[in-house]
């Protein structure tokens, strides 16, 4: 039997939905985490497509 997947929309999610890092931003704190996250995404894009 070949590998097959189940539609992810049919798989239950947890009652506690945890948003990703940087999704909530405190009003008056400079969100250095946002910077870290943007850098993280840039690294990810580079790793996926170094050219």
């Amino acid at each position, binding site marked *: *039997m070949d*590998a*097959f*997947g*189940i*539609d*992810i929309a*049919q*798989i*239950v*999610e*947890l*009652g*506690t*939905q*945890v*948003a*990703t*890092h*940087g*999704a*909530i*931003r*405190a*009003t*008056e*704190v*400079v*969100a*250095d*985490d*946002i*910077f*870290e*996250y943007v850098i*993280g*995404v840039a690294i*990810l894009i580079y790793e*996926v497509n170094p050219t």
Partner: protein
Amino acid sequence: MIADDDVLGAARRRSEEVAARWHDGPAWRGLETRFAGLERASAPEVARQARDLLEDDRWIEPLLAPFVEALAGDPWVEPPLQVSRDPLRTGAVLFDCPAVSIAAAVLSADALVALPPPETVVVPGRLSVVRYVRGGGARLRLWAAEPVRGDFSAAAARPCLALGTLPLGDGVVLSLDGRTRGHLIEDATGDVVTITATIRPGAAPFMREYRIADGRFVRVATLDDGAARSQMMLTLLRQFGRADAGDCFEAASRDRAFFLRWQAMREWLAVDASAALPRLAEMAADDPNGEVRAAAAATLPVVEQSIAARRCRD
């Protein structure tokens, strides 16, 4: 004003010179020395160092002087600072190391007045020490939330409680334990200028948001950078249909972050249900998190039926 390539090239070289001078300067070195080796220290220990630093603000002007001087001579020079700008706030990270991140920010009183009143308050999850260089005549409104652990459950979250307000005078230094306290600035009549030291050790696993009207929990975000990156990578593996990445899904299904464990299983089931099935059964039986166990137990018969139907068809 649009600069040509020569002007921008010269500005880039000057920017590099300024950055090198800044990193070698006594002000930056002083910060580096103060927080050296504290990445494994306790949060109160790092906070004590931050408070000692922020009680006296005479280090800030020398720290920024190389940039002020360079920008006076060339407006295209770019200080090597991470900068954030939006209508409400302009901020820059002045210093960053594994123990602490120090940022300066100006909060616009005009923008604060123009905004609708906030409906939620954030409990950021990290200890911070803040110097209100200019208090702007504002008040700090505080809330208390229960301590949060790695097995946080939205259903069991207790509401946060309003604690009252503090006046923000110029030069006031406050330690704000964002692991159990949320705060908002209100009633500013002038811009609020802050230097904030955010303490990295001892952070809570999550940042939480609560409704101001009744204190009810609204949502939660992870502060675990590694887990957030793993979530993205797992989704990417699914999108690419990487059935050969079973080891990655399996390893992530054993992560300490409960939400990552379940996401890994969902992604794995969406790529290769048969390979994921034994681990799904394990999670239904003995995952340490109740919500994960329940989700796995509810999913198990669905997956078994799908596999059986597929076998019949093949």
